[in-house]
Each structure stands twice: as structure tokens, then as C-alpha cells.
């Protein structure tokens, strides 16, 4: 569950990115977040991931007020999330396996269990045969799928994605969306920021449209 109560985020350099925003996403819901670039999509995701804190208002995730989390608690909170980036943020000098294993490594998981989980995650995105390869040897679509495997390997309850299909051709983009639908069916809460309107109108999911940091349209729960 993700809930925003009158959230405002102001940057000193460029003013308000989010203005008095309120909405609620049910647990296990899948929703798109759309709007022109600069509408506040990335800022919203950063607030959920606690990469930034709101200037005013309250963000609640899984029933927990994020404003009440101390610096020490943040890492443990982040392990409940999976985050997918547009430019996938893979480490170029580590193998696909090591990249995907990163979230498990930081939580001190044993080697055997780690290997099992990494292979399961790679299997879900169809890259089981590429575990020894360096990310630079993969195509753009494959790199994005490695990023997805890394986001889900810790079995997060909430998955955030920022323009996950931004650099991909329509076929690959649809493929990625199919992967997300499978996670949705498995009970994960998903919030996907994208400006690819053609893609989301073809799918029966709730869409939040931002404009100038405000909620312009909420298509409602499907």
C-alpha cells in the first residue's frame, strides 16, 4: 500500500515538483504514473523509495509513515522495495549474476540461497543463460531485464519503475509489461512511471496523470 497525504516537494533550484498531492494505492494494485516530463513522476517515485524526503505532507508505505523512519532504518525499509531505472544502473564490471545478487549481498544472505534466488529471478526474465556475461555484452532490452531481475530478486512487496521501457522498441516494451503483469498477479504492488501513452491505454490498469506536480486525472481503480 502506498499513500500520499498532501505531499509537497520543493527544490531550492526549480521550485515545486509536487504540490499538495494526495492519492492511495491499494496493496497488490498495479498502476501507471504518467504526464509530461517535469510533471513530477520521478520525484514521486523518489519519495516512495526514500531517496528524498517531502518538504510537507506524509508518505505512508505498507502502513509505515516514512517521515518516522530514522537514517538507520532506511536500508531495511528499502529492502521491501524493488526499483527499476530507465538507464538500468547496472555495474559494468560485474557479471549479470553479481549485478542481480547485489540486493541479496547487502542483506548478508548465504551463498547457496543467494545463488538459488538469483537464478530464479533471471529465469523469470528469461536470462538464465546469461548469468556469466558482463552487462555491456547485452542488448538494451536484455540489460533492462537484468535491472528488473535485480529489482525482484529480494522478493519486494512494492515495485517501482521509472520509464522502464523508455529506450526500448514497442515489441520489447510489451514484453517488459507482460513481465510486470506476472508480478502483479503474484501480489506485488507496482507503480510504473511512463510517458508511453500508447502502451498504457492498451492495458486495463489504473493511471495517475500528473501535471505541474498536481494530480490531473485519476482513472480510478480497475
Amino acid at each position, binding site marked *: 500500500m502506498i499513500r500520499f497525504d498532501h505531499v509537497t516537494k520543493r527544490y531550492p533550484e526549480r521550485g515545486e515538483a509536487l504540490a499538495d498531492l494526495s492519492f492511495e494505492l491499494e496493496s497488490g494494485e498495479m498502476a501507471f504514473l504518467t504526464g509530461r516530463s517535469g510533471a513530477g513522476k520521478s520525484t514521486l517515485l523518489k519519495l516512495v523509495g526514500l531517496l528524498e524526503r517531502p518538504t510537507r505532507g506524509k508518505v505512508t508505505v505498507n502502513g509505515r509513515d516514512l517521515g518516522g523512519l530514522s537514517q538507520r532504518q532506511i536500508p531495511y525499509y528499502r529492502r521491501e522495495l524493488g526499483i527499476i531505472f530507465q538507464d538500468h544502473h547496472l555495474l559494468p564490471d560485474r557479471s549479470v549474476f553479481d549485478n542481480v545478487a547485489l540486493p541479496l549481498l547487502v542483506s*548478508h*544472505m*548465504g551463498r547457496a540461497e543467494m545463488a538459488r534466488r538469483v537464478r530464479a529471478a533471471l529465469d523469470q526474465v528469461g536470462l538464465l543463460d546469461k548469468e556469466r556475461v558482463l552487462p555491456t555484452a547485452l542488448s538494451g532490452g536484455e540489460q533492462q531485464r537484468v535491472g528488473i531481475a535485480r529489482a525482484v530478486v529480494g522478493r519486494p*512487496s512494492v515495485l517501482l519503475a521509472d520509464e522502464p521501457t523508455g529506450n526500448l522498441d514497442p515489441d520489447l516494451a510489451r514484453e517488459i509489461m507482460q513481465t510486470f503483469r506476472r508480478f502483479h498477479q503474484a501480489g506485488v504492488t507496482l507503480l510504473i512511471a511512463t510517458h508511453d501513452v500508447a502502451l498504457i491505454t492498451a492495458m486495463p490498469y489504473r493511471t495517475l496523470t500528473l501535471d505541474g506536480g498536481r494530480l490531473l486525472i485519476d482513472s480510478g481503480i480497475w
Partner: protein
Amino acid sequence: MARRRGHPLRSPWAAVRVWLSHHGRSLLVSLGDLARAPLASLMTVAVVGISLTLPATLHLATRNLAALAQGWQESAAISLFLSPGLAEPETQALAEGLARRPELAQVRIITPAEGLAELREYSGLGGALDLLPDNPLPTVLALDPAAAVAADPTALTALRDTLAKLPGVDQARLDTAWVRRLHALLGLGGDAALLLAALLALAVLFAVGNTLRLEVARRRQEIELMAIVGATQAFVRRPFLYAGAWYGLFGGVLAALLATLALVWLQAPVGRLAALYGTEFPLQGLDGRTLGALLMGGPLLGLAGAWLAVGRHLAACAPR
């Protein structure tokens, strides 16, 4: 969501084992990182090593001089110059009387003839001495004070004054002023070594700190990513702390080697010098305490430097 979290049925011992294996891995990985940039690592190790060598060498020099001075202190002797014309039996009686005193360990009579022979041998005035019409030297009683008295400068002076008043004694000489001066100088040397050690410890801190600061900047993307996927600050900091400790350890080993090398190099000239004084003076090498200080202090300094450098950068990664 509780259903999908955590590691079910993991025993406490298994958790400890995983944690230990992670530490061991970090230790090795940080060593590997050092080896991947050998030139940069070597330069940092060299700076650390040389910084630690200077105070270590000064400390060794002071210690050796102190050992040398200790030998002189123990031989702090009192020379009694007897009145000229004191007859042989009276001299003998005086010497025997002195030998019974508890303050004195040993009494030796140096006759004028023996004194002249000694002078001829050590002064290099052989030819000139031959020109003297007769032996101008008085009989001398060389006294070794008992150990308890020798260690106490006040008691030595008092003893000297008492002996000077004995009949038949012309002059009593106790030459300890220079020994005291030497000890003051050695004390100064020791303090200088400490001061130098403190200053150069700061240098080590900054050298390691700066190297790791660059390393943190180089791996910024990786660090941010680890923070995003839920790494604690301790986890992110750990490999850098280990790297700092490695730099310190290798620097300490280098310093121990350099200090030993300096001693070996000085051994020959010191030996020649000692031979000129008719003695032997084996230089004392690196003792266990100094070695321990280098091998423990080095890594601790490296660790502290790493902590300072990395801590500031990590704080910058916190959510704004």
C-alpha cells in the same frame, strides 16, 4: 507482505557464519582492489611506510644511545689523586681501608708508571712524553662505587666529598656532569620522536584518507546503487575501512623493513667508532614493542583515515 520477507528457519549460528564469511570476503576483496591499481596502492603504502619509518628510526637511535649511556653510568668512577710523595705502604693501607667501605665495590691502584703507560698508549703523545725528565703523574686510586651508590647522583657527590677529605688525598674527581647532559639530550630525543610520531601519524591519516576519498569518488555509482538496494552504511563503509587497514599494515611492514635496513647500514660505522674507543657496541634491532606498535598502529591509523574520508561521503548520500 510478511509472508515473502526474511530468511525462514535461519539459526543464529548460520547468521553469524554468513556475517563472518561476508567479513572475510570483504577483507579479501579490498585486498584485490588494492592489487588492481598496484602503482597507486604502492605509492600510498610508500607514503605511509616512510612516515612511520622516521619516528621508528629516531626511537631506535634514542634507545641505542640510552643503552650506551647506561653502560657509562654504571662505570661512573671516582678517581682519587693522591698527594705526591705518599709512600708505597701508606698508599697500600689507604687502598685497603677504602676497599672495606660498603659504598665501594672495587679499588684499583694506578701507579705513576702505569698511568704514563696508559697515557702513552691512548693519547698518541708517545714521543713527547719521552722528553719529560721524570714522571709527573701522581698515584691514582680508581674507585668503582657500589651499584646502589652509582645509580644515585647525590650519593655519588657526597661520597666524592667525603673521600676528598681523607688524609693523603690531593683531589677527588667525579665526572658525571656530561652523563647527566647526555641523559637530558636522550630525553629530548625521546620527546622529539613522540612529537614526530604524532605529526607523521596525522600525515598517514591524510594520505590514506585522500587515497580512499578518490576511490569513493570513483565508485560513487556503485555506492549509490548499493544504498538504493538497502545496504546499510556499515556495509558500504566496510571495504573502504579494510582497504585503509591494509594500507596501514603494509606501510607498517615497510617501515619495519626500512628501520631494520637503516640499522644494518649503520652497524658497520658504529662498530668502527666503538673500536676506536676500544669497546664493542652491538646495535639493538627492532624490539617487540616497537614492531608491535608499527604493525598495530599502522592498520589503526589507516582505519581511522578511511573512516574520516568515507564517513563524510556517505553522509552526502542520505535522502534530502
